[in-house]
């Protein structure tokens, strides 16, 4: 894990929070405590990347007709899949990354590329 480096007022004291998602070794599965609120953000590397669609637990996390750089959801029990569709201002040449943020804590989840705009995360709520 690394500290958030996205700016912000250094005088602000964040509550002691840490990222919740843990990768299961040799698997693309994540796990985290059910009921926990999770915040995911996208960061730009080449061009701008935004989340146009997000679906988790049968619900949509992005308002229709909008694209966002941050979304929040609550971990459901058992295995659920978060599905994302990302849009890139640099088309298939665009690059970015998906991170989890929790207060001042932040962790890298995966890199994003414009030629794979659909991403899924299997998350086990334990």
């Amino acid at each position, binding site marked *: 894990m*690394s500290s958030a480096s996205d700016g912000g007022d250094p005088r602000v004291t964040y509550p002691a929070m840490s990222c919740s998602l*843990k*990768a299961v070794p*040799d*698997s*693309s*599965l994540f796990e985290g405590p059910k009921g926990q609120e999770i915040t995911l953000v996208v960061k730009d590397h080449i*061009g*701008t990347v*935004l989340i*146009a*669609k997000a*679906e988790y637990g049968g619900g949509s996390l*992005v308002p*229709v*007709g*909008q*694209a966002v750089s941050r979304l929040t959801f609550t971990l459901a029990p058992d295995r659920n*899949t978060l*599905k994302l*569709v990302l*849009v*890139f*201002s*640099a*088309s*298939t040449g665009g690059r970015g990354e998906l991170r989890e943020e929790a207060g001042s804590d932040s*962790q*890298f*989840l*995966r*890199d994003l*590329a414009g*030629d*794979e*705009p*659909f*991403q*899924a*995360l*299997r998350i086990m709520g334990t």
Partner: protein
Amino acid sequence: MRPRMLLMLLVLAAPSPGYAQIEECGFFKRTIDDIVAGRIPPPPDDNATRLLSVERGARCFAIYAAGAERILFRDFVKRFEASRTDKQSGAAASGAGSTSVASQGPAAKVLSVAAEYGALAQSVDGQVVTIRGNLAGIPSVLLRQNVFPYCVDNLTNGYCASGSLLGLLRRASFSVSFDATRGSQLTATPADGATTTEPVAFRAKRDQISAVAARIELWNQRDTTSKSFLDAWRSTVGAAMDLTAEDLLLRAGTFTDSVINAPDYDAWQMRHVPRVRAAGQNRDAIVSALRDALRDLLAIVDARVPDLASQAEAALVSYNAFFLAQDELIDAIAMKRVFALEYVGNRPIGQPNTSNVRLIVDWPLTPRTKLVGNGGATIYDTLPADAPAGARRYRDAQVALQLDHGLDKASILGPAVFSLAVYFQHQHSPALLQVDPLNPIPGVSFVGLSAGAKTVFAQKGSLGLFQAKLTLAPVGSNVKVPVSFTYSNRTELIDKPTWRGQVGFAYDFDSLFALADRAVR
């Protein structure tokens, strides 16, 4: 072979024999390159797990599941023929009882029709319908039908269309204008005092094509990195990509669910990830491990999901549409500095045909303001035999300057655009009108002409014109309504100052076709 087929073949890259390799798919290739180069991702990520994650490289896995990397030219032709929607299933458009008002056309996406009323430098008003298109239209339609894929990587045997190729084709456009007033037919006049119903002779007038035009962008510099572009992109991308993103979520999501929800998927990963790791940084060994893993995965999932290939195919169609829509949005909102050359062949009613060549400069000043300059010359295609002594084929030269300012915060594509324009035309050779009592020129009456006069001409000289225009585009609609007022010191025919008002109407059919396509799917 039909002309459309020939054109399509011309725009495709040269075919290469043999199958492409699945490891050339972008996601696989990047990951293998990282492993070979020893690039280690930040924890908790790791390259071997990443390579075998359908969740992360669904498109490449779908290509493998659909067998799309093994598509050869014969399959491509089959797909093309199967996708054709232009075969008339009912009566022909001109046939009695037909439900079609127009024949199907392949370039639906790029068709737009503008009906304009009024004229600027001409004295003959008319109702003109213009159909415009560009050369990217046909490949774009075929991309949406998944006849051939969007080029993302080098695994499609060359039978694909790239964003750069489509961008190049979009630079060449064409239009045909039809004068609706020419469709009326002339009837014989019954004798005076006739009170009974009499048969009359109908005679079709000349065809309705009033102009054909071709335009090519000689130079086109796009800005896709500035803050103003990114601001405009952020504010429009959600709405613009809503339908295609939703479709991709559904189709790619269905395919991915089928694979990752297979009971053996986790076991498959745990079995093959160590094999990829065991290959070390040896590219051949990694590729071999990947191929083994893919074969194994397909066997596992195929047994449980018989229509996996169909799901993969549907997902690939959605990817095509998504990439195309994303590129079209970028192309639409990028500020472009353009130099273009345009040819217009005019076939005005009652006047000799002319050819006009024009150089166009389109120069954005700010995200909301742009300057457009034109310079051109017109020649008569042929001079009438009885043309006056001073008439020459070189008819006139024109220059024009127009300033467009968007009244919306986002861009000049906003809901309203205010324009100011000046136009200057030097009439080197007089405007010629051909007198035909059976085909009178709308809006023109001749008084005191000698009985044998067949050609009349106006004065030479210069004419200047000033125009103020407001183009309204109601939010959520695809309609544009330009309203303008024009002052000119004279027209080609009338040597007096003139005030005019013009109202137009344009509809972009693209959205209509997109909705229809969505309904079908």
